[in-house]
């Protein structure tokens, strides 16, 4: 499965901005066998970056043990309407995707 859609929601909390991001990704462990008994090769997101107004605020390294179609929630300090939030990922095949949203 190639990279499918991503979705992000940013909402203002008290003193922070709640960011929830969904990504379509198989997160294959390399241990699972398909219906024909063949091992499905490892395919998983390794890096995740969150940027606020162009500046990196969170760098994550993750393993194949994160569930398929990953969902992450983060909290950013403060936050105001108009803030631009960007989330991008990179997987072990070198594929990547990104999504951005403006806090409303």
């Amino acid at each position, binding site marked *: 499965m190639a990279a499918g859609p991503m979705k992000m929601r940013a909402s203002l909390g008290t003193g922070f901005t709640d960011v929830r991001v969904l990504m379509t990704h198989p997160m294959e462990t390399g241990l699972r066998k398909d219906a024909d008994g063949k091992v499905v090769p490892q395919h998983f997101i390794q890096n995740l970056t969150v940027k606020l107004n162009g500046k990196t605020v969170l760098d994550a390294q993750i393993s194949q043990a994160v569930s398929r179609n990953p*969902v992450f*929630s983060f909290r950013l300090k403060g936050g105001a309407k108009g803030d631009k939030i960007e989330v991008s990922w990179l997987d072990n095949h070198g594929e990547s995707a990104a999504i951005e949203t403006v806090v409303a």
Partner: protein
Amino acid sequence: MKALAFGAALALSCAAYGQDVAKEIQRYRQMVAEGSPAELFELEGEELWKKPQGPKNVSLQRCDLGEGPGVLKAAYAHLPRYFKDADRVMDLESRLLHCMSTLQGRSREEATARVFGSADRPSEFELLSIYIAGQSRGVKIEPGLSQPKEKASYELGRALYFHRVGAWDFSCASCHGDEGKRIRMQELPVLYKPEAARPVIATWPAYRVSTSQLVTLQWRMNDCYRQMRTGPGNKR
């Protein structure tokens, strides 16, 4: 309410300890629901609804799901229902297939080549279903029951529900027949009672945690029959 019945069932066997198990499983389900990627599939379904396809290269946007051509609001909640143009009762999938054939000019063979998808690639019906069901949020589920053919379908469904068959002698009621029963930790709603069925049916189509897969009610019933040890309702 659900949690209460669940707790009570467990309490019979292991007293206070059971209450904790029930509470924790409830918490698990709630946390999973909060982190469900189901919304991603609604977006994909919306794209498919609007995408021109088939020999006529048109989208499904003029499809009449019972509330008028192109009206999605509340359509899913009122299915299955009788459609005059087809002179029969249709559920969401059969109505979508009707539109794929009449509007888009697609053949039944092509459109139904893949009714149930996989975790890697949900089927067109699954993606369309979750998008369309999403437009019935908050609407009471009330399938058609006034027209004679609607009544006949209902009676047949009821007979099928209690029909014991297959290598293990099950009917739907073998598991979904009495209040407060479970398979493993899964509570079993008594689905022939509308008040018990409504809140359950409202959660479908669903993102299934065990297989990370988007699944529809048709899939759910087909897979129940698999576990009842009969053959499937789809040819594949």
